[in-house]
């Protein structure tokens, strides 16, 4: 808000307390405007999550217990789900970062008109339902899909290949879904870099590759880390793509969670499993903040 210049007041003028009172009233009115939204978030997000925390910490008789959490780690199967989740998220994050970097860079060097045209292909997938984007891979890689058709017509294969419902397809589908999430922050970061810095480097004798490596690249790192953190955090809890493209063979934590809720009549185990996911997400965000200075408000679209 733009402050209006007010001449300094003498403390004893009698106006200062009145103004302070006004400022306080203004402040509480402004806060009051945010309260309805806060109420919705408190009612539909905070209270259910709070209840889950409570449920995860008590046993059937209402006594405090860590049993629900400990039992998550007692079965090797569950540990493997956890491992799958982290591995899948890490792979998706690395692949997305490697692909998004040249894409975002190319967007910054394009002429305005062409850039707008190219942006269409980045933003429209983001606006398209995840289900559509997942279904598309079934059409492309399915038994009678495009890839199998082409290969059969070329005589390369006699039997259709099983390309869907496996780990590879899940990674591919996830990368496709997550790509715009990292391209956009990365592009914004690259766009905001002062071109004079790169120009100065080259006028002082740096070759284009040196200027890129020593000047441009380090300046893009905050954007890269912010985008990568966003992709990693979203991947950790992602449900839709693995459950469709994994074909039951790729069990990530979100799928395990959904199954626990469907097959259990008790809330405790599911609550603990869900809060572990939340804990992992928060841990990643805190880690990203302390290690590379990514702030939570950067991890938003």
């Amino acid at each position, binding site marked *: 808000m733009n402050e209006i210049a007010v001449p300094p007041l003498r403390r004893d003028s009698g106006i200062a307390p009145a103004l302070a009172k006004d400022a306080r009233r203004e402040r509480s009115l*402004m806060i009051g405007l945010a309260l309805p939204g806060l109420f919705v978030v408190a009612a539909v997000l905070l209270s259910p*999550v709070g209840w*889950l925390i409570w449920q995860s910490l008590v046993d059937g008789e209402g006594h405090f217990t860590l049993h629900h959490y400990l039992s998550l780690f007692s079965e090797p199967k569950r540990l493997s789900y956890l491992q799958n989740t982290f591995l899948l998220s890490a792979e998706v994050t690395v692949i997305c970062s490697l692909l998004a970097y040249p894409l975002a860079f190319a967007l910054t060097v394009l002429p305005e008109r062409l850039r707008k045209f190219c942006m269409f292909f980045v933003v429209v997938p983001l606006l398209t339902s995840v289900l*559509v984007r997942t279904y598309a891979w*079934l059409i492309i890689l399915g038994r009678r*899909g495009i890839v199998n058709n082409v290969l059969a017509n070329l005589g390369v294969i006699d039997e259709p290949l099983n390309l869907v419902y496996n780990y590879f397809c899940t990674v591919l589908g996830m990368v496709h879904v997550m790509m715009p999430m990292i391209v956009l922050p990365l592009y914004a970061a690259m766009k905001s870099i002062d071109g004079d810095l790169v120009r100065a480097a080259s006028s002082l004798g740096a070759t284009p590759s040196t200027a890129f490596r020593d000047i441009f690249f380090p300046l893009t790192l905050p954007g890269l880390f912010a985008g990568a953190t966003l992709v990693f955090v979203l991947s950790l809890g992602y449900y839709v793509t693995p459950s469709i493209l994994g074909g039951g063979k790729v069990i990530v934590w979100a799928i395990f969670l959904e199954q626990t809720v469907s097959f259990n009549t008790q809330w405790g185990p599911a609550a603990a499993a*869900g809060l572990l996911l939340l804990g992992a997400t928060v841990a990643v965000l805190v880690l990203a903040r302390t290690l590379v200075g990514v702030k*939570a*408000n950067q991890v938003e*679209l």
Partner: protein
Amino acid sequence: MSQDTNYIPHWHRAWLYILLALLLAFLAAPIFVVIPVSFSNTSTLQFPPESLSLQWYVRLFSSARWQSSAYNSMLAALLTVCCTIPLGIMAAYGLNSIRTGLGKFISATLMLPLIVPLILVAIGIYFLYARLGLINTMVGLVAAHTMYTLPLAITMIAAGLRRFDRNQEMVARSLGANRLKAFMTVTLPQIKFSVMSAGFLTFIASFDEVVIALFISGGSNATLPRQMFNQLRNSIDPTIAAISTLLIALALIVFAAMQFLKSNEA
């Protein structure tokens, strides 16, 4: 960067442009592959289809189940926009001037729906609604979607407000307009493009939302994404392609609308 890196001729960057084209194709091509399949006349997924027909659209539009789920999604999305946008305007307006202490804390809390994993949110809401008897109700769905879309709307409207000079509103008030009137006649018209963009985004976010709807919408209040998700796990007939094509059309409309609003704003 664009004009500053001109010391490298464009043809030296040919590899970069080829890579760009491939990556854009990777992002967009799968989506547009769906469209021809929706016009095929066989029930297997074949690309390109052998001959064209509208049978999957006919089947879609004559199915009571698909119709009612599309209606539910439409209604839920419209109601969500009606809740999220006023709440979003109020919160963005209030918090725009208070960046410290309690205001900062409230801002952070309002952004939480973006950080908490959606599947956990869905399960939490499922537990809560089971107790309140709100499962499979429109009210419950709209409340959940309002929470889910609020951070996006606040972010977009706040961006619009930051470009607006609030002294103009002060002037209106010093000339005798009350607070509400000053906001309605001076401020709102100048941020209306941000507000409308936020409205479109909220609509499509709610319309396409799967995970929460999977847990809390069902029976006669099942949404289109829920219906689609369940179908996708069982069979992948081209009816889904027909719905997908319509959803792509919706995404294109929202994209066009937001581009239009953005060009008006500048």
